[in-house]
């Protein structure tokens, strides 16, 4: 289904882009098209963002549409709420997901609740972009992967693209969504590969996962930076004769339960991979979804290969925190030989 939808991309003019370029491109297109869009955040103007996501945008659109803000996350989100209820469509950058916490109250009690609290009189069509995840040898606190804090928050949607194509498509979908959307951007994937993507506008539907590898013995479920770990593990497993299917969730809330259910009903086994901590991670939600939808199909307990229940360590040790292909392969073997 989702595959079909995206198949028209071949007809369009395309350009080779990294994920971060795709993000930049999505914002540029929307700034051109919709004058309600206003981009704001720390160091996003002249500097073009610490990852260059907003490179060139202030130059092109001026500093009242691409705004450097004070160092104040609650201020950024709180002010965006005011802009959004009053007709604008703010796209706020939080420099790293690990620095979103000072804005947590604003997101939890207002961004996600204004529609409900005002019976849809006031709405907050805003986007929050946040680079997340470990593996780029960043200083401490910069590497958190705490998506569950937002998936457990009715009123907001959460997406997490792993490819340039999905990044642009989901970001544009988020910018057009009538509700607030948190876009989690895997830093590790920012420049890890290039992809031909349409130069024009397109969207990837929020709420739809994608099968990125077809297989029959076990379903690997992942998102963001963990997709490439899943892929490497699947290749290694393939050599051992184990055929893996991989689901890239792409949207973390509302999660695509159907794609999980169908796949696990077929493969009868599942391994979930995420870099967030084991306890309280989104992996548990997926276990529940499988429990609810594929109980009678399941041949082995679901495995979760995740970050440990420890703060993300300093970067010399972060490789020991993050799931690796080897750990995933062990998980795959475990569900197969149960």
């Amino acid at each position, binding site marked *: 289904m989702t595959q079909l939808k995206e198949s028209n991309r071949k007809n369009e003019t395309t350009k080779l882009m990294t994920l971060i370029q795709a993000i930049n491109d999505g914002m540029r297109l929307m700034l051109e098209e919709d004058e309600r869009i206003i981009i704001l955040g720390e160091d996003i103007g002249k500097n073009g963002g610490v990852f260059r996501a907003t490179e060139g945008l202030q130059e092109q659109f001026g500093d009242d549409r691409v705004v450097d803000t004070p160092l*104040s996350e609650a201020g950024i989100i709180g*002010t965006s709420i005011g802009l959004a209820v009053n007709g604008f469509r703010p796209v706020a950058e939080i420099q790293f997901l690990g620095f979103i916490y000072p804005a947590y109250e604003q997101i939890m009690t207002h961004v996600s609740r204004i529609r409900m609290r005002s*019976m849809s009189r006031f709405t907050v069509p805003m986007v929050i972009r946040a680079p997340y995840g470990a593996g780029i040898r960043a200083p401490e606190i910069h590497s958190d992967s705490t998506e569950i804090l937002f998936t457990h928050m009715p009123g907001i949607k959460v997406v997490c693209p792993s490819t340039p194509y999905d990044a642009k498509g989901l970001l544009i979908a988020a910018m057009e969504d009538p*509700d607030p959307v948190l876009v989690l951007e895997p830093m590790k994937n920012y420049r890890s590969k290039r992809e031909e993507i349409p130069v024009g506008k397109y969207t990837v539907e929020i709420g739809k996962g994608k099968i990125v590898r077809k297989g029959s013995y076990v379903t690997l479920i992942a998102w963001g930076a963990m997709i490439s770990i899943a892929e490497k593990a699947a290749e290694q497993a393939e050599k051992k004769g184990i055929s893996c299917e991989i689901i890239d969730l792409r949207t973390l809330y509302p999660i695509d339960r159907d794609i999980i259910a169908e796949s696990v009903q077929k493969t009868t086994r599942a391994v979930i991979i995420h870099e967030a901590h084991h306890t309280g991670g989104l992996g548990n939600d997926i276990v529940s979804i499988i429990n609810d939808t594929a109980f009678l199909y399941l041949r082995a307990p679901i495995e979760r290969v995740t970050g440990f229940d420890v703060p993300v360590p300093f970067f010399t040790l972060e490789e020991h925190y993050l799931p690796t292909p080897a750990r995933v392969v062990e998980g795959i073997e475990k569900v197969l030989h149960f």
Partner: protein
Amino acid sequence: MEHNYPIKRIVDDKGFLVDMSFEQQIDEELVKNLYYHMLRIRTFDRKAINLQRQGRLGTYAPFEGQEAAQVGSALALNDADWVFPTYRDHGATITFGKSMATTFLYWNGRVEGCVAPADRNIFPPAVPIATQLPHAAGAAWAEKRRGTQNVAIAYFGDGATSEGDFHEGLNFASVFKVPVVFFNQNNGYAISVPIEKQMNSATIAQKSVAYGMPGYRIDGNDCFAVYFETKKAFDYARSGNGPTLIEAVTWRKGAHTTADDPSKYRLEKQGENFVDPLIRLELFMKNYGYWNDEWIQATQEKTTGEVEAAVEEMEKFPQPNVADVFDHVYAEMPAQLAEQKEAYLVHLGRRD
């Protein structure tokens, strides 16, 4: 510092003009308007307390003593302006045009109570303290971007000044020079915590210095001082000069909420020095020939009637709709939520 922020008064405790420069600007229409609204919201407030005692309303946050601050500031607004109130500012929102029945509903645990008339930009009351200050800055910023002359006002208490959001809101507003007025009602207490334990600064007005914005300290029980000073700040904002911080010094006469017992933390005689703002206006009216027994009685009857009608409207309001629990979370309901809703409605159906 205190001397840099003298309390601005136009009328004194005995109802005499102390700033003659306003003599011309005070006319009968304004006086009557102030009186009508202050009486109206006082009637509302006392009724609400009664209803709560009778079990006809949930926990309620009264504002008696703060009528001048709320009415004076709200009357200085234009219809297209934005209001960001707290849970204690329904005196202001009612004056600005929110319906009293809706306001009663709010205190009866009805989400409908958050919804202002379509032609009034009134945000749902902020419950998490100080969170509304950045919202007001943002809404004002939007007006500035559109090039209108509309402003926003954020209401907040003395306790709210301790939260980070107070600081971040004022900082944003000052950096982007947006048309917003931060209107503080310093009523002496944050629940049980007196202002001396809340802050070490002698005034709240002086906190404006941190943001390079004008700050004014006014007698919050003098409805004229409130009205004219707030209006001045609005004009300043409308002319593109940016935000203002106003500290209206007032007094919460009653409990923090109907669940609170102020005798635990306040002495009986505390606050005695504050002359009731309505009495002060009455004195003024008598001193300057605005008092007219007939009009007063008519106004009393009118406001009582309005409040009674609102009570009736509230009590006749349709029962809450279970579907509302689910229907206003997203524009389009995600599948899992739709399933939860359906399953629950089926469950309810089975039980009926």
